[in-house]
């Protein structure tokens, strides 16, 4: 039972309730002790750092200061939301790299007699903990209902793999962590080339047309590879792709219907939890049809859509990738 300092972030209570509920369900099964940092505050999401640097970093590192005070033997702060994870990681990284910034922030924190020594905490995303600490073998052993039959587009978004200060992810453009998790759950992860492309972030408020184009590309990519649903690790990505899917369809006269859910919801399903407790139904684009496919044989594609040339077994051999080379050894 390893325990972590848990930073939930605001969206877990509002727009990403499904993420929170499914995380609670999954947490029990995997034996993760997530001790919430008491009196944590908003992390400034993607906007505040762009508006006013020192107050933004002070706001963020207040959470880190609280976490160090409350250290329950663990030095790791877990953030499920990509934006919170990146902001916490940025605060820790730049306070260390630019001592004068660190001093100013700590000066601000003194008002609440708090202090944060940069580098004293490890800041990691939930997916990183599941893959590297819990481990795929452990997750696979907990799967009761393998999700055979559905094709899932794994979508990581841009904040988790980049800038990746501590070099935790396998690649900065095409990381395979989420793919491996999905196949551990029995689902088929499509080879989704846009897995780390931008979802628009806060663009829907500033310039909707730009946001719609970015969202259309992701939906088109998922639809092209016949994904039944798209799985994400970040409340902001989920909201953009789900909430603005209808408007994007109106804007481009398309009719994509791709459910956008959190990877923890799928994990809950695979662990045999009741969909109600996993936040299913909260999404705007219904997952009802997609979920019904779990367990069915995959029908032969009717070929209506243009199939991308997949490498058939015949023809010239593909070069082996480093991951497979390890498997060979």
């Amino acid at each position, binding site marked *: 039972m390893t325990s972590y300092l848990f930073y939930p972030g605001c969206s877990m209570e509002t727009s990403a309730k499904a993420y929170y509920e499914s995380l609670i369900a999954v947490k029990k099964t995997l034996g993760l002790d997530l001790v919430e940092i008491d009196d944590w505050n908003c992390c400034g999401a993607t906007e505040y750092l762009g508006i006013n640097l020192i107050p933004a970093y002070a706001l963020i590192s207040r959470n880190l200061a609280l976490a160090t005070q409350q250290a329950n033997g663990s030095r790791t702060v877990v953030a499920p939301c990509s934006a919170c994870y990146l902001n916490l990681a940025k605060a820790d990284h730049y306070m260390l790299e630019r001592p004068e910034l660190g001093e100013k922030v700590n000066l601000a924190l003194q008002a609440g007699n708090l202090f944060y020594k940069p580098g004293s905490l490890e800041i990691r995303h939930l997916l990183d903990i599941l893959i590297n600490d819990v481990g795929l073998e452990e997750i696979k052993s907990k799967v009761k209902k393998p999700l055979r039959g559905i094709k899932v587009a794994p979508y990581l978004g841009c904040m988790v793999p980049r800038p990746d200060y501590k070099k935790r992810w396998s690649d900065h453009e095409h990381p395979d962590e989420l793919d491996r998790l999905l196949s551990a759950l029995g689902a088929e992860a499509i080879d989704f080339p846009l897995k780390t492309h931008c979802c628009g972030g806060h663009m829907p408020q500033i310039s909707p047309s730009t946001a719609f184009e970015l969202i259309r590309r992701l939906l*088109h990519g998922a639809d092209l590879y016949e994904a039944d649903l798209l799985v994400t690790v970040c409340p902001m990505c989920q909201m953009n792709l789900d909430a603005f899917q209808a408007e994007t369809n109106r804007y481009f006269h398309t009719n994509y219907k791709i459910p956008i859910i959190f990877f923890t919801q799928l994990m809950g399903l695979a662990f045999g939890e009741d969909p109600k407790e996993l936040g299913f139904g909260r999404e705007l684009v219904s997952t009802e049809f997609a979920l019904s496919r779990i367990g069915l044989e995959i029908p032969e594609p009717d070929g209506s859509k243009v199939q*991308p040339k997949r490498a058939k077994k015949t*023809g*010239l*051999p593909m070069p082996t990738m480093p991951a497979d080379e390890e498997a060979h050894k």
Partner: protein
Amino acid sequence: MTNFTTSNGNKERIGVYVCHCGSNIAGTVNVEEVAAWVRTELEGLGVLISRDYKFMCSSLGQELIQNDIKELGLTRIVVGACSPHLHEQTFRTACRRAELNPYLCELVSIREQISWVHTDKDQATEKSKAVIAGGVYRVVHHQPLEPLHVPIHPATLVVGGGIAGIQAALELADAGYPVYIVEREPSIGGHMAQFDKTFPTLDCAACILTPKMVSVGSHPNITLLTWSEVRQVEGYVGNFTVTIQKKARYVNDEFCTGCAICQEKCPKKVIDEIYEAGLGYRKAIYTPFPQAVPKYPVIDRQNCIYFQKGTCKACEKFCPTNAIDFTQEDELVTVNVGNIILATGYDLFDARRVSQYGYGRLANVFTSLEFERLSNAAGPTNGDIVLRDGVTVPKTVGIVHCVGSRDRNFNNYCSVICCMQGLKFAHIVHERTGATVYNFYIDMRTAYKAYDEFYQRVLEEGTLFVRGKVAEITDAARLPGEEGKLIIQVEDTLAGKQRRIPVDMVILSSGLEPRSDAKDLAKLFGISCSADGWLIEKHPKLDPVATMTEGIFIAGSVQGPKDIPTSVAQGAAAAARVLGRIQQGEIAIEPILASVDAEKCSGCRICNGLCPYNAIVFHDDRNVTEINPALCQGCGTCIAACPAGAISGTGFSDTQILAQIDGLLLLNAE
């Protein structure tokens, strides 16, 4: 207090010469004042004559020294001039001509290390006095020495059977001297054997390479050790003893006729990662390519069914001359050679490291070596240029230059050959498929003979050149017409806009990298390699094929990225240097050696582990250490380490250095 009377009781008779070097020295150092100061201040040491002269290295300058030696019976000479690396030999020869042992002469640098690097005239003059005083204090303790004459063994070892190694071996063998070639792969030929055409002449690589390979294979003076690796090198210039591991081929080369029936009958097919660059297959028993030299196949133990499961033996059954011999063992062969030429070539940059180009993930992204095999008539597709599915002929092809080169994330240097290679591919694709060809480059480097003309020709053939570094290659279609294609995202710096160019096939013109085991190779042969792994030449401009270690030469892309003509030229150059050595018959080595005084040595063995050349030997019976003068390279580490002060060294003895320190600090003694 070091007293200055030397072994023969009276003072030495010293001549000091301060050179003007035109104005190079005299411009910043008051040479007359220095000469005068030496005459008065250092007279007590035995300085009889102290001159300053315009050009000491000129014949007149040398005659000055010779005459003084004869007339004044000088026993020591100190010259304040340029650098020992330049004219030490000149002044030593002058001394020898005047029957004074050349090692009793000391050249003190007052140009490179004073006049050229200091501006204040007074300081420069003061420092010149001090540095010459250091030289005089030192030279008093010099001992007459004779250079060691070491016979040169006429045989030569060439490591690496690529085009550079082949050229060197042929030059030496044709000159009548024995050559050993050691090649790691089953056949010589190196990377060039994999190519289809060569730029700029579009010669077929095999057509111009195989004749040289055949003459190597049949040359009476060349012993070919393929499927072998050097395990140990001992000795020094003129007398290297090299231990080579000949891996078992499991084919008896007396009986094998090279008919290749065994390769047909062998049931086990494996991807050929080396020769076919992972694009083609070979059998468990194989020769890399039909024109292999030597023609005898080898059995790859990891994949041979007999060696893995103990069954099959198809090759043995069908071999007409039963040349197959599963009982063969690896063999250690020792050869004695006088010189060694390293020509072990390069590794291709691993394009998988550039994840945004998608090699290894996107099927139709190929590397340059893969395309060489694709376009080669003896290749997996018999020369048909097709996509990864082995069927479809591409309509549009994108060729990306500078993959992994001129890139801070990977290799800073330019790999010299990727531009011309990219142009060659463009021509071949155009000629064979009529496809539209895009070349993405940042600078078109076509520097050598007939290279730029080739570039003009490829331009006129209608190749579309986009000047810009490719940002990403993706199969995520975004605009209509992009489905099912590879989209090349690039900023066209000439058109000044971002472009998304859909193509069917991408060829990555990857750069060259040092061999992954370059550092071990350098350690094995006792030479040094740069941080990233290219072997270091004696002088980048004036001595590119020699190394700092006497008797070891380098040729080809082991020294740095280069094209075939330069590799061939370097192969021949290295051979010429070796021939020069062999002709001399012997070589004079600087007599800088260490030796142990058996009386003083207590057998503490502190020094025993300090010599990388194994020159330090411990005699258990006499409890005393001894240094083998033949192996000692004169680094002096053991001299400095000996706790009992029992090891002394010629040329750089303790007394000489300590005296030099006194001399250097003389001026500040008052």
